[in-house]
């Protein structure tokens, strides 16, 4: 008896045809690459919208006193900047990358639920139109900070209901995206690709998707209770009615802390793809990376109260949350060690994606260290609600998450567009970004240590000099990102001058590098023959 075998997947949503023409291609598309592109472009647009808000903040803080905006509008800017950057820029960018890359990395022709994929993207523009429209309402936008702590958040204007509904829509979009990613990764992997042969980016996204599904109902429930407290007379968080505003902080941070890891785990995956390529070595300690990612995800559920040490909690609680938070440094340390060990004695070259990846490792680690400082209860009593916290989370989210997204954009841009970006411009972008981002955020550590509170439009003159440097860094960093915009637009719409090879980077491994460049509209209609040499992390243990 002889056996011949070919494989295909269960997606018959696309046949052998190219994209539709015109606007309908983008509105009705179920193609994972189109939807990935939509997510990435949306995220880029939101990055500049949120960035513009940051510049309003930094312009006001350039000098002590009130110069540019009213205090209430300043508060609206701090709130909206955070909401736009978290839910509009960073998260959609990672979902966009997942859309583009996960099916190609696992050898699937598309996402498992392509129509739902279309909905999960198209909800987002409506959600953000609603959110941003509040800035033009009579009562102005939300001004209580992105954490929406009651009772302050309940004292805003009537735009509050729009904000809550927008957050519901964002959550719905995230949940649908997460379900799709879980279904795709678990059910549509190419034959012979078992879980421990998946690329690390796929692993980190699988764990991120689980986190999203577990915490999104908590956020939705929390903001719904705010809504009912405001409009329907309930007293979940109203002390006058027997509620407890501090419970909102608990429930919010039970969502909020895993959310931080939702924004950083995919970044770990991206860096774990890029460093081996440019070090020309397999990723060191692949299996430990997977376990470290899972450990971080688990620990993220039991550390939420480190955001609220100053609310007054029992000593046992403070100790538990302090030590649990410190334990996160262990799996994170494993990751940093593995990245460094991957580079050790590698044949390294420093193309732009690698520069951003190395920048990520160094600067994210600085953000991690300041996080450890904040984990220490007595120290946190001093640092809480100061610019030290602002510096910490911007090191984690800008030089961490955003740098990794930029690294990913440079790394996969040739595969997406068929055009190689200008390496010279890419390096200019990196070095200017590194210098200016440190000028922007590093002085904020000193401001915080000196006692400058966050979320204030005016400040004591003793903080003037560091704020001035920070604002100069902010504007320079913002302008530097125009280079990135130019590079992306040129690669996307510029004339193709050369045919790039399938494997654009010499050291790249993984199934996405086995398809043509630029990636065809439909890939892997037949499941690929997954071989040991395609294992992205080089670990061929079966």
């Amino acid at each position, binding site marked *: *008896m*002889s*056996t*011949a*075998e*070919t*494989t*295909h*997947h*269960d997606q*018959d949503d696309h*046949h*052998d*045809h190219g994209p539709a023409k015109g606007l309908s291609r983008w509105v009705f598309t179920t193609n994972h690459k189109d939807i990935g592109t939509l997510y990435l472009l949306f995220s880029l647009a939101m990055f500049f919208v949120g960035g513009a808000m940051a510049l309003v903040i930094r312009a006001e803080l350039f000098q002590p006193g009130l110069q540019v905006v009213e205090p209430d509008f300043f508060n609206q800017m701090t709130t909206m900047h955070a909401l736009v950057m978290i839910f509009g820029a960073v998260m959609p960018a990672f979902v966009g990358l997942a859309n583009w890359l996960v099916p190609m990395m696992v050898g699937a022709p598309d996402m*498992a*639920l392509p129509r*739902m994929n279309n909905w999960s993207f198209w909800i987002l523009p409506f959600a953000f139109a609603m959110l941003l429209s509040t800035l033009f309402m009579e009562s102005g936008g939300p001004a209580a900070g992105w954490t929406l702590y009651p009772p302050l958040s309940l004292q805003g204007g009537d735009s509050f209901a729009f904000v809550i509904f927008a957050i519901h829509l964002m959550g719905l979009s995230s*949940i649908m995206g997460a*379900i*799709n990613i*879980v*279904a795709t990764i*678990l*059910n*549509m*992997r*190419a*034959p012979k*690709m078992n879980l421990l042969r998946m690329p690390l980016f796929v692993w980190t996204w699988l764990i991120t998707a*689980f986190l999203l*599904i*577990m*915490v*999104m*109902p*908590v956020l*939705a*429930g*929390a903001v*719904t*209770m705010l809504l*009912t407290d405001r409009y329907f007379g309930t007293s*979940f968080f109203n002390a006058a009615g027997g509620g407890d505003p501090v*419970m909102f902080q*608990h*429930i919010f941070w*039970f969502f909020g802390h895993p959310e931080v890891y939702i924004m950083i785990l995919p970044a770990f995956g991206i860096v774990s793809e890029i460093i081996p390529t440019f070090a020309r070595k397999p990723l060191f300690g692949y299996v430990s990376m997977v376990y470290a990612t899972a450990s971080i995800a688990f620990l993220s*559920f039991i550390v939420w109260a480190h955001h609220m040490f100053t609310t007054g909690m029992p000593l046992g609680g403070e100790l538990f949350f302090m030590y649990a938070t410190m334990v996160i440094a262990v799996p994170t340390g494993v990751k940093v060690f593995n990245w460094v060990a991957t580079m050790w004695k590698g044949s390294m070259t420093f193309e732009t994606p690698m520069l951003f990846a190395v920048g990520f490792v160094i600067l994210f680690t600085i953000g991690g260290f300041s996080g450890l400082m904040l984990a220490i209860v007595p120290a946190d009593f001093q640092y809480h609600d100061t610019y030290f916290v602002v510096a910490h989370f911007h090191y984690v989210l800008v030089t961490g998450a955003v740098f990794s997204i930029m690294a990913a954009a440079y790394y996969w841009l040739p595969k997406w567009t068929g055009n190689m970006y200008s390496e010279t411009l890419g390096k200019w972008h990196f070095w200017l970004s590194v210098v200016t981002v440190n000028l922007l955020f590093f002085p904020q550590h000193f401001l915080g240590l000196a006692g400058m509170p966050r979320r204030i439009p005016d400040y004591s003159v003793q903080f003037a000099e560091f704020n001035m440097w920070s604002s100069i860094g902010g504007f320079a960093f913002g302008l530097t990102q125009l280079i990135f915009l130019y590079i992306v637009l040129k690669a996307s719409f510029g004339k193709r001058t050369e045919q790039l090879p399938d494997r654009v980077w010499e050291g790249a491994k993984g199934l996405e590098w086995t398809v043509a460049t630029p990636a065809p509209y439909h890939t892997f*209609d*037949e*499941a690929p023959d997954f071989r040991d040499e395609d294992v992205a992390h080089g670990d061929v243990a079966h």
Partner: protein
Amino acid sequence: MVEVQSSETETCRIQVRPNRSLSRRGLCLTVGLVSSGALLASGFFALQGLWVPLPLAGAELLAFTACMIYVLRRSDQFELIDVGPDRVAVTAGGSGSSTVTDFQRYWLRVELKPGRYASDPRRLTLSSHGREVEVGRFLNENERTTLFGELRRLVRNR
């Protein structure tokens, strides 16, 4: 996935099924893991009086489970084409049920017909005596063409 098991003396069997990397056990584990995490979290807050996340988590988990089951059932389908000396049997099924259609091999027509619209994929059909069965709906155009050639060869030669 098209799997051809042939021999000069035995009945030849062609198995057509979608690729699938998730088992039923894997599905149960996944749903169990996600549900326990989400329900534990929202249940904890419900015990503190903040009950609103609990029904939302329930609704989300229902949607998650339904999507996973839908995906699994879609990839649970199969077609078995048994080409014997005299008869050709097509067994089509999935999710525990199946239907069998028998054809007399000598009168069997294997055809690759155009789709209803120009953009539709072609249809591979087996027909005789007024009965028609479409096979290989899961396949892409290249695989369908290959299966068509293989079926014609087997039906003619055996």
